[in-house]
């Protein structure tokens, strides 16, 4: 820890200075919330990538192994996880594109930051809903 107690080194030993609260009291803002969301969705997608490899390996192993994995995916828990991964994917994708634009040093004015931020949130919701609706349609699901 840096500069805990007194800095003169001549007085009697003192307790370390307290650290002012940081995440415990700092206001969540679109900036920090979207940033941590990008990180959390990245972590979720890393787990999803493991699932992708499992799924591909099952397909390579033959129709019976593939059926086992498909049953897990088609269960309620599997579909819930898949929906979560879809939303995480679109949020990370849109957030990632926002980051790539920032890397070209564009869009740093506060107005642009907030407009692009809300656009990322809206686009992720719309794209996830569209992906799932179209998938269900293609799969032949009728309401």
């Amino acid at each position, binding site marked *: 820890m840096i500069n*805990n107690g007194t800095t003169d080194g001549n007085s009697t030993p003192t307790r370390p*200075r307290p650290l002012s*609260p940081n995440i415990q009291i700092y*206001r969540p803002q679109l900036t920090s919330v979207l940033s941590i969301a990008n990180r959390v969705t990245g972590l979720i997608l890393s787990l999803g990538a493991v699932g992708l490899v499992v799924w591909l390996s099952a397909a390579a192993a033959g129709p019976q192994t593939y059926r086992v994995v498909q049953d897990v995916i088609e269960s309620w828990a599997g579909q819930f996880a898949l929906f979560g991964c879809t939303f995480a994917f679109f949020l990370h994708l849109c957030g990632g594109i926002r980051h790539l634009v920032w890397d070209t040093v564009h869009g740093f004015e506060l107005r642009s930051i907030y407009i692009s931020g809300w656009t990322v949130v809206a686009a992720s919701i719309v794209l996830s809903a569209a992906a799932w609706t179209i998938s269900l349609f293609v799969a032949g699901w009728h309401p």
Partner: protein
Amino acid sequence: MIIESSDQVSRLSWLKRFPIPRNFKVTPESRIERGRTWPAPADAKRVKAFEIYRYDPDSGGNPRLDKFHVDVDDCGPMVLDALFWIKNKVDSTLTFRRSCREGVCGSCAMNMDGTNWLACTRFISDLGTNATIYPLANMRIIKDLVPDLTHVFAQYAAIEPWLYSKTPEPEKERLQSPEERSQLDGYYECILCFCCTSGCPSHWWNGNRFLGPAVLLQAWRWLTDSRDEAKGERLDALEDPFRLYRCHTILNCTRTCPKGLNPGKAIAEIKKAIVEREK
């Protein structure tokens, strides 16, 4: 919803802090305990409650949260006026830094209602019903609202914030065109209040090695100065996975700057310069 400038306060006050325990992952000496509630003034018509972080190094106790009631009609419009009112009329031990009272010195930087700003330019009416005043986030506290800025100033010294010249001194001035001078706009105005650095989560977790937005903005100020002749050496000193690349463009810094500056953009410019010299 759409913030156009950093002085706008968020109207969505439904979430003032992340939903985690108040003393989450806090070391024993930093635990905030319940403090005393000071009585409201008897004849005041409009009273505002302030919860203020207190710490007395001489008492041997932990930090605490004291609740004060301020007669808003009896004091000026800014939060700094309220702090002076409390110090003059209620508790004279309340300690805080202050100097210019007009937003140019950076002394009164503190965390009000969850965001870092200058107390002298934050209106009391912009704070919520239960206003909270904490010192700058993630700083070692000397007393009450006074943070120890030794480390962040040492990080500032580490980037060598002075003109580096290799060619011999000119007879008169070092010349600079208006376009070259305009490159400094938005960077030279920094008052080193450290609101941005104190609000950066990356600096919270890696502040010992990550330089932080204030220092990096000043680093860009010297990089972009046409009179400076050490651009390569400056970029060498910055290119480090921790000194520079702990910045993940969270952008709390740009959101909170009381002078309306853009540290996030400055850091993006530094990263771009480093890539450009590679390719």
